[in-house]
């Protein structure tokens, strides 16, 4: 724990170095928890700003990036999402929820045999576009999106 913490603090103080290292992907994949949490990206208030903060200023729609999510979520607090990239050499995937106060939800870097495939559960404050962004090793960004409706109310079940 102490080592972990020191490493993270060290990362935080060396943000310039980190920015260079980030060129390898959306995030630095080499060391365990060694990257700095991308505060600017996670605290950005809209999707374009958040995408810019992760370096994904321009993206192309891709049919090979698959985003699976319910058409209508039973509970906005727990919305299951699957993302799977068939785009060769995908090294990172990030998830954005346009209408959330902070759209960037998660970013994954894959290495050492990990497939570009992730499932996760996210909170959604209201009906919104959910967006996946994939980055390839050559620095290109691809995107796929889907609207998820969020309902309110209901009793014990």
């Amino acid at each position, binding site marked *: *724990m102490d080592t*972990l*913490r020191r490493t*993270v603090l060290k990362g935080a103080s060396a943000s310039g170095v980190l920015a260079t290292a980030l060129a390898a992907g959306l*995030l*630095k*994949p*080499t*060391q*365990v*928890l060694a*990257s700095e*949490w*991308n505060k600017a990206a*996670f605290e950005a208030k809209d999707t374009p700003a958040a995408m810019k903060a992760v370096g994904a200023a321009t993206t192309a729609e891709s049919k090979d990036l698959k985003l699976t999510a319910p058409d209508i979520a039973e509970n906005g*607090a*727990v*919305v299951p999402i*699957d993302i799977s990239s068939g785009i060769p050499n995908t090294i990172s995937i990030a998830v954005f*929820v346009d209408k*959330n*106060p*902070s759209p*960037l*939800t*998660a*970013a*994954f*870097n*894959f*290495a*050492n*045999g*990990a*497939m570009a*495939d*992730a*499932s*996760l*559960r*996210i*909170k*959604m404050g209201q009906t919104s576009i959910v967006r996946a962004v994939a980055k390839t090793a050559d620095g290109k960004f691809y995107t796929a999106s889907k609207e998820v409706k969020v309902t309110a109310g209901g009793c014990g079940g």
Partner: protein
Amino acid sequence: MGSPMKVRAQMKGDFADIKILMSHPMETGQRKDPKTNQPFPALFIQQFSVEVGGKVVVQAETGTAISTNPVFGFKVKGAKAGDKVVVKWQDNKGDSRTDEATIA
């Protein structure tokens, strides 16, 4: 120290299917305590990593919009039954947790 995770890993054809359940409140910092009308302070996992056989396969950064008691799933090629899977997380208050499992 955080509460234990539950990590499951099994071979499915040519890849290892890894499922991770974390025990964490994932407090957004925006939810108000109805009694005091003060927001509960933000408390959320910011980073986690997955190692298989000693190598980092997934490194993740997460925000407040990950659901409480997070659940993640990944697929890893080149792994085999018996390989050790190690998952580590760290939250915004510096708490952390490491748990492991063996690929079945």
